[in-house]
């Protein structure tokens, strides 16, 4: 075709990016790559390799090593070996390495972009203009954190060796999100890139060499799911960071349950894209292009569920169809292509299958007239309208360029539909009214909310999900915390021997209820308060073990003063559910005995139905979460006030099981602890992040929701308050299982809360055997988090049982936390676990 003909047709014509350099790089390596371990290239122990192909034409690009357990072990050893040297460097020295990596990423940016596109199939425009610049930005930003580490996080220690497993949709960007914060916080890394897209990670290995990074600080092992499994199961890995499917995330949670590995998961999503009638509709359409038609829709946070206000639905659908018709699909190396190739045949099959099912469910499928390339894995942009929430395409993550459209009538219904999903990764809200946009943003169950924009990312802003989209954040200050732990916690010894407080059944405990309760009571009496008190600075007399309970205190504990010969009035402690005292469903009670074996009273034995009722009551208590922080503080102060008033009588009863000294300390510190969290209630502020756009990103601390808390056996009152109060202070509703050793405290507690204006259902208390209550609680799918403070076995059980809805799990890992030491047992660390961070992006400008 001549220029004259082109002048008439005004077509774009091809604009291919040159792949010569990338091909030369592959050729230089003989189209064959080994693992990067200990600073050098190591052949796979089993000698196995697999092919990685160009999804746009199905051609083999190279062979890469298939990592075995032996390879992973070598990599972990190299990483372990590098820990001390890397940690011994000054923060400034680590900052220099990260800075060098950022620079080198920029110097090799085109090679990285072209290779990414060849390996993944995404348009070069995206890898060149979005992925790789964000990679460089991530290392620059974290070079800064590395520099500031000791001043900004003086009381934290790195996790150690971090195992990282990343997906194929943003291969190098996900690597950056993982490696940059890990290195900045002085960890060493074993990373496995996705099986489909290992190549840019291998260029990155060369960049590490070029930057002179000490050997073993970064190790890259290629392979499939089995390689990832070997990393997850390796005993000497301290933390696992995973991005990928919810299914695999679940199995990682289960596989790491019996270990002390920290875990962060960034999983799937079915993110809502909400368009209100007052939105700039043309811009909203472009938002969809940047959302569901970005990276072929293979984006975990893609706005795949379009929720349109009824009044504009028709107009919007017409605009979307017009726009879809101008999307260009084809060779991803072409600079004017919008939609490239899907990563692999298996993914293409999955998309087709789900779309077929959606149509079978009644959806209307619309695709523009496009000619797909004859080779490679391509799928046209697709609009499914008339989709109902019951349809599979409204529920399951398709991970393809497929938009499912629905309508809503009111903002309230938009929120309801948006939150009608097991996921909670991201959401978009389009409205020109800041009132509507922010009101809706606040109500969405999603870790990231984009107002009038889509898929904006930055190293300074946290990214991560609610619900089954995982936990932990990447980016920003919140992301760094995933790679560190408080130094005191890492140094706290594990509970051992008789001191260990197991919440799960153990052979010795398989006895009848009465003798079990008696033995547990005896254990508490043997609880070494003196040990803890001595390093808490509480002035407990040495050898105060086995406090003597005087007969007067025993009698008062049993029923108050008896000045005449009439028997004490029986005191019945019940469960506390929905603001009411409730008899246990089982109809059984358990004896509670004092140090000396004396019967103190009986506590109800709660069971799974009581847990069910408690969770329902907590869910209904929405007023607490909506109350202002000031109001919540007032209620907490009132609790402290009322506890103070009843200090002596409660202390007297408590003394029967923990002794006078500890009882007094628990009451006094307990009152103070309530004061602390009342103080914190309106001060645990979020942040405003500064990404390089005209934009504010509001990092808001939001309550997690409904929490189940298994309180520590030790310190029946103080332990309870130390966990329940931060949860309540920040607006969570709680189901608490009090110390099994002294469940009678419940009677004092509900009287306290009843008289302190705590709304019904905000706090529910179920007594009973923790070993029996842990399971229904940890497995309850309407619970957002479980906190378990017992021994190691209890922590492991809580983690393993949480996989159903991937609720957040926080445990003491079986460590003996000193609840009497306010330096460790209260403060930000507790508040951080009681909240999750929602990043709301609000671009501005007129």
């Amino acid at each position: 075709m001549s220029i004259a003909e082109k002048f008439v047709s005004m077509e774009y014509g091809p604009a291919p990016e040159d792949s010569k350099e990338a091909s030369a790089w592959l050729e230089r390596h003989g189209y064959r790559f080994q693992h990067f371990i200990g600073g050098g290239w190591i052949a796979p122990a089993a000698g196995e390799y697999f092919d990685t192909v160009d999804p746009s034409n199905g051609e083999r690009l190279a062979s890469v090593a298939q990592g075995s357990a032996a390879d992973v072990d070598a990599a972990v050893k190299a990483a372990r070996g590098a820990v001390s040297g890397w940690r011994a460097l000054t923060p400034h020295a680590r900052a220099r390495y990260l800075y060098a990596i950022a620079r080198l990423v920029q110097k090799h940016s085109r090679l990285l972009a072209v290779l990414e596109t060849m390996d993944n199939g995404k348009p070069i425009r995206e890898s060149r203009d979005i992925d790789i610049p964000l990679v460089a930005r991530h290392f620059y930003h974290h070079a800064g954190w590395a520099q500031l580490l000791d001043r900004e996080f003086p009381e934290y220690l790195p996790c150690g060796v971090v195992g990282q497993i990343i997906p194929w949709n943003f291969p190098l960007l996900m690597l950056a999100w993982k490696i940059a914060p890990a290195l900045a916080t002085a960890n060493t890394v074993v990373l496995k890139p996705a099986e489909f897209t290992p190549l840019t990670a291998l260029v990155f290995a060369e960049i590490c060499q070029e930057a002179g990074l000490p050997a073993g600080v970064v190790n890259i092992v290629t392979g499939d799911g089995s390689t990832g499994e070997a990393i997850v199961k390796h005993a000497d890995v301290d933390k696992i960071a995973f991005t990928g499917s919810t299914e695999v995330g679940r199995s990682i949670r289960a596989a790491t349950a019996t270990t002390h590995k920290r875990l962060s998961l960034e999983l799937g999503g079915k993110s809502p894209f909400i368009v209100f009638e007052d939105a700039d509709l043309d811009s909203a359409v472009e938002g969809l292009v940047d959302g569901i038609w970005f990276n072929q829709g293979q984006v975990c946070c893609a706005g795949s569920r379009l929720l349109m206000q009824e009044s504009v639905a028709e107009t919007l659908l017409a605009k979307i169809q017009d726009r879809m018709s101008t999307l260009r699909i084809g060779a991803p190396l072409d600079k004017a292509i919008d939609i490239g190739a899907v990563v692999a045949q298996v993914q293409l099959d999955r998309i087709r299958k789900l779309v077929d099912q959606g149509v079978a469910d009644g959806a209307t499928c619309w695709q523009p007239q496009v000619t797909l390339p004859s080779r490679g894995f391509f799928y046209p942009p697709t609009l499914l309208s008339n989709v109902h929430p019951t349809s599979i395409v409204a529920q399951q993550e398709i991970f393809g360029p497929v938009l499912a459209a629905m309508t809503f009538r009111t903002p309230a219904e938009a929120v309801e539909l948006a939150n009608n999903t097991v996921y909670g990764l991201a959401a978009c809200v389009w409205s020109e009214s800041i009132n509507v946009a922010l009101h809706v943003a606040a109500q969405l169950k999603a870790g990231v909310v984009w107002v009038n924009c889509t898929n904006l990312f930055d190293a300074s802003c946290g990214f991560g999900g609610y619900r089954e989209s995982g936990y932990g954040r990447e980016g920003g200050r919140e992301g760094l915390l995933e790679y560190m732990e408080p130094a005191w916690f890492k140094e706290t010894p594990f509970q051992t021997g008789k001191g260990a407080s197991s919440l799960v059944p153990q052979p010795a405990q398989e006895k009848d209820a009465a003798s079990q309760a008696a033995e547990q009571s005896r254990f508490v009496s043997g609880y070494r308060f003196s040990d803890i008190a001595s390093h808490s600075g509480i002035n407990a007399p040495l050898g105060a073990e086995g406090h003597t309970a005087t007969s007067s205190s025993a009698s008062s504990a049993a029923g108050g003063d008896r000045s005449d010969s009439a028997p004490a009035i029986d005191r019945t402690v019940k469960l506390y559910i929905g603001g009411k005292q409730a008899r246990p469903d089982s109809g059984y009670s358990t004896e509670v005995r004092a140090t000396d074996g004396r019967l103190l009273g009986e506590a109800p034995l709660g069971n799974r139905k009581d847990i069910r009722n408690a969770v329902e009551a907590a869910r209904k208590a929405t007023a607490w979460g909506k109350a202002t922080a000031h109001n919540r503080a007032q209620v907490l102060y009132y609790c402290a006030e009322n506890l103070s008033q009843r200090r002596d009588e409660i202390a007297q009863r408590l003394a029967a099981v923990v002794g006078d000294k500890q009882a007094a300390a628990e009451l006094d510190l307990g009152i103070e602890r309530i004061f602390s969290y009342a103080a914190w209630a309106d001060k645990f502020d979020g942040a405003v992040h500064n990404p390089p756009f005209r934009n504010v990103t509001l990092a808001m601390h939001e309550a997690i929701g409904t929490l189940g808390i298994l309180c520590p056996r030790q310190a029946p009152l103080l332990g309870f308050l130390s966990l329940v109060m931060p949860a309540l202070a920040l607006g969570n509703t709680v189901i608490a299982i009090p110390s099994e050793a002294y469940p009678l405290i419940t009677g004092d507690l509900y009287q306290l809360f009843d008289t302190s204006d705590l709304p019904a259902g905000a706090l529910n208390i179920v007594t009973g055997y923790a070993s029996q209550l842990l399971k229904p609680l940890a497995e309850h799918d309407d619970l957002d988090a479980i906190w378990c403070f017992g021994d190691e076995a209890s922590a492991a059980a809580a983690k393993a049982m949480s996989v159903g809805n991937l609720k957040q799990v926080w445990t003491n890992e079986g460590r003996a936390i000193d609840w009497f030491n306010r330096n460790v047992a209260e403060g930000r660390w507790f508040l951080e676990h009681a909240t999750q961070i929602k990043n709301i992006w609000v671009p501005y400008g007129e």
Partner: protein
Amino acid sequence: MPVEHDPSRHLNRPHAHAGIPIPSLSGQPLLPNTGIPLNLDWVREARVNTSAVERRAQSQVARRSVKKEWQAAWLLRAITCMDLTTLSGDDTDERVRRLCAKGRHPIQPEIEKKLGIEDLQIKVAAICVYHTFVETALHALQGSGVHVAAVSTGFPAGLSPLAERVNEIRRSVEAGAHEIDVVITRAYVFGGRWQALYDEISAFRQACGPAHMKVILGTGDLLTLRNVARASLVAMMAGADFIKTSTGKEPTNATLPVGLVMTRCIREYAQQTGMAVGFKPAGGIRTAKQSIDWLAMIKEELGESWLRKEMFRFGASGLLGDIERQLEHHATGRYSAEYRHPLA
């Protein structure tokens, strides 16, 4: 907001579009714009999210790349959509004649030959001058098919009395100008006085008669994109043949975000009324690369039928020089120099 197309309005003025191919949108043929009654609801409901528009304008440029022979073809198209402009206080008859000569033959014959485009007879769309030079330009362009456009209505401020501004249009039309570029009273936009703006532009429309009317919004003065959208809608409702960004004399000239808002308004107007309005970005467009970005934006937002001089113009004085150098590069494979091309 569906609006009935009123064919009777066509009778009110001579048909300026006879023989011109009809533009279309999504396959639907459109009619020339005859205007509609002022629809205030539509004007007030215009919503523009500035950040989102800026983002789209930015990514649009990055997403569309035109290379090699296609690039040469697009640059030739840019020339044919050009209003080659001189609007300076020091303009003279001779200066205008020089410009007209360049407009008739913007590309050197040997380059045309090398590119194989002699038959296309590439020339600019119009020469844009002050009223004073209309006659000179007409004479210089005789037989070339290149139009003469006159800026009018107290250009560039547009603040002389209405009667004088209307008379100015009449004088230029009588002098033979094919096209009239009018400026609006920006104060009407700031004050939300849409009826006044509508009446003003309607008066201009009346005075233009058979001549083509391009309405300059002065987007560099209006500043907000929402204002740009509202003014665009009112201008189209009042019968503009083209809407144009700037006089070239404001602090900011044509920007892609402004262009995006205006083209989206044109699209919506076409969808609602079935009538097509042209678009002219003016000022600040100086490089061949910029001209391709603009053409790509028009192609994306309005489609290929808008990529013709009847529907799209560049208002530019320096652009042609850069395009010539790029075309010579296409022809010879060597980078060119400015002095190698005849002055305008």
